[in-house]
């Protein structure tokens, strides 16, 4: 008879090992899935995890790793703060879109003026846009006790419609021959989030992501607010006795995650994506949820997890081109990863004990 015994404290060893085991399990079952789809499983796994890093065209794919990893890390860091305190912002995709729109709008408003202050203003506008969009669920939660999960998610659909309206209307390129989408910011020097060192993929978003990691690490380990966040998540009652004000925490956590998601959107639209278009968002806001959990809600873990997830994106694209693996297979693969992670977390918090059945 197998029984579960709750550990007095989560196991440190398992909490580091579970993400690794989960990745291995995902590779195994993902390989099976690819096999069922008629692709050679070993070849598929190799293409996804090896090719982008060490393959023949790695010089092209490695910069992509930074380009795809930066928004994931930036968003996931923000989400992890809230998740730790039991505040569930799952509408990062919406905040990402709004940040991109406000950031791009500020840039486009200055066109064709060239000046050094345009890009910093866009950064501020992007963060502000994401922050404002996240303040809607935060305010409703604090003021009316409305469920932030549902509100933040509903706002993703609203943001998507808003994006469509903007790229067909207000922000549409007046010289675009009627095609939807804004002017290309890559061709507007003052607003272009270019590679800091050419062809490395190292743009301002990557710098911001690294700063966010350090910031979150310091916040959680060295700052009172970080302690309050962790305390609220682990022992809400104790937190209340310790004088933590839940509403302040909700506003701060949702606000920070919104601002970071908005930044991610702004860096994407002014750099790799280049223009506001109906479908420029590719679901980073949702994948970042997986990244946050895979990184165990720890800043350094998130950095590594963001890199791994970016790898599956790029490897997935290569596998699509070379092996004809469907794009959705990678989405399933990423979803699987979250499953194994959550399931294996059992080992962190519980001990599995073998026991003879006893008579009650």
């Amino acid at each position, binding site marked *: 008879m197998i029984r*579960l015994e*709750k550990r007095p404290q989560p196991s440190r060893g398992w909490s580091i090992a579970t993400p690794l085991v989960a990745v291995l399990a995902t590779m195994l079952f993902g390989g099976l899935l690819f096999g069922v*789809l008629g692709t050679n499983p070993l070849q598929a796994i190799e293409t996804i995890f090896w090719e982008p890093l060490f393959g023949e065209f790695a010089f092209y794919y490695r910069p992509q790793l930074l380009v795809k990893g930066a928004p994931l890390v930036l968003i996931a860091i923000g989400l992890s703060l809230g998740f730790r305190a039991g505040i*569930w912002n*799952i509408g990062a995709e919406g905040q990402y879109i709004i940040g991109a729109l406000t950031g791009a709008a500020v840039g486009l408003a200055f066109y064709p003026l060239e000046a050094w202050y345009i890009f910093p203003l866009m950064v501020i506008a992007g963060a502000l846009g994401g922050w404002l969009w996240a303040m809607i669920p935060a305010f*409703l939660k604090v003021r*009316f*006790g*409305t*469920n932030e*999960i*549902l*509100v933040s*998610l*509903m*706002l*993703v*659909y*609203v943001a998507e*419609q*808003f994006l*469509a*309206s903007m790229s*067909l*209307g207000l922000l549409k390129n007046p010289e675009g021959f009627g095609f939807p989408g804004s002017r290309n910011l890559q061709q507007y020097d003052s607003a272009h989030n270019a590679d800091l060192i050419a062809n490395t993929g190292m743009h301002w978003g990557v710098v911001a992501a690294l700063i966010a990691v350090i910031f979150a690490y310091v916040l959680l380990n060295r700052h009172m607010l970080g302690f309050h966040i962790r305390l609220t998540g682990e022992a809400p009652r104790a937190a209340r006795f310790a004088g933590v004000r839940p509403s302040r925490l909700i506003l701060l956590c949702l606000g920070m995650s919104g601002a970071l998601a908005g930044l991610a959107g702004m860096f994407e639209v002014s750099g790799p994506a280049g223009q506001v278009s109906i479908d420029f968002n590719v679901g980073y806001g*949702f994948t970042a*949820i*997986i990244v946050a*959990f895979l990184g165990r809600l720890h800043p350094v873990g998130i950095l590594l997890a963001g890199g791994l997830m970016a790898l599956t994106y790029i490897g997935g694209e290569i596998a699509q081109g070379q092996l004809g693996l*469907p*794009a*959705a*297979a*990678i*989405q*399933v*693969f*990423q*979803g*699987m990863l*979250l*499953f194994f992670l*959550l*399931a*294996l*977390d*059992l080992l962190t*918090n*519980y001990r599995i004990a073998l026991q003879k059945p006893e008579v009650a």
Partner: protein
Amino acid sequence: MDLSAINPVLLIASLMVAATPLLLAAIGELVVEKAGVLNLGVEGMMIVGAISGFAIAVETGSPWLGFLAAAVGGAALSLLFVVLTQVALANQVASGLALTLFGLGLSSLMGQSYVGVKPPRMAELHIPGLSDMPVLGPILFSHDPVLYLGVAIIAAVWAVLKFTRVGLILRAVGENHDAAHALGYKVVRIRIAAIAFGGACAGLGGAYISLIRVPQWTEGMTAGVGWIALALVVFASWKPWRVLLGAYLFGGVTVVQLNLQAAGVAIPVEYLAMSPYLVTILVLVILSADKSSAPAALGRIFHASH
């Protein structure tokens, strides 16, 4: 703009069609939450139901088999949630999100060869006499059988929760799982059954979209209906008949905005398309003051130490 083109009888009839997927998904989730489990994977189970139902209906030519497959598909996906939350004792919010993310990916993988295919049509009911009545005929008596099944499920859930022993036990488990366990009820088994029922209902709701409402398969076609269904359960204060009311309200908003789009109202299409989501938020705000009717053990992890 030509509002006179909107026919009120057709409007109400299509409102009921638009409400049915929501209604099915929401009544399933209501049972799950009554058992004390919060499954945020409704959207994922719906979309998997939508494609399983669609695929089987196309392959067999029978919409009925399609709906059966959708229920099985939704329930099968919900068993993954069971493994995570009831066996591995994982956080229910995170597990529900995982289910949705996984379901969206899985459905687009399954649906690749079904894009642009036309499904077999399910014949609408025709009751001689009743269906031919003016006004009431098209509104009440000329729909597909699944729409009536949805209403019947609501009635059944209401009756079971209110009048039967099974319903009482289910509610006990949702209010206080430790007490229910001490009384000798199998908390985990009851919850598994509830989750599977919720999955089957969500699957049916998804298939209703892909087989009857639209009817075709496109990726991500549930477009947040599963999330609105979750909001609907809160709106209904966990009461079955209010789910029906809420679903018709949301169905009404959807249909009216679609009709206004078609009529060419001066409001841009995108802003009209936002309206169901904004109404959901508004309703949540109005109703969130009263949380007293939520099951007390909702979302809490049950671990029997003895």
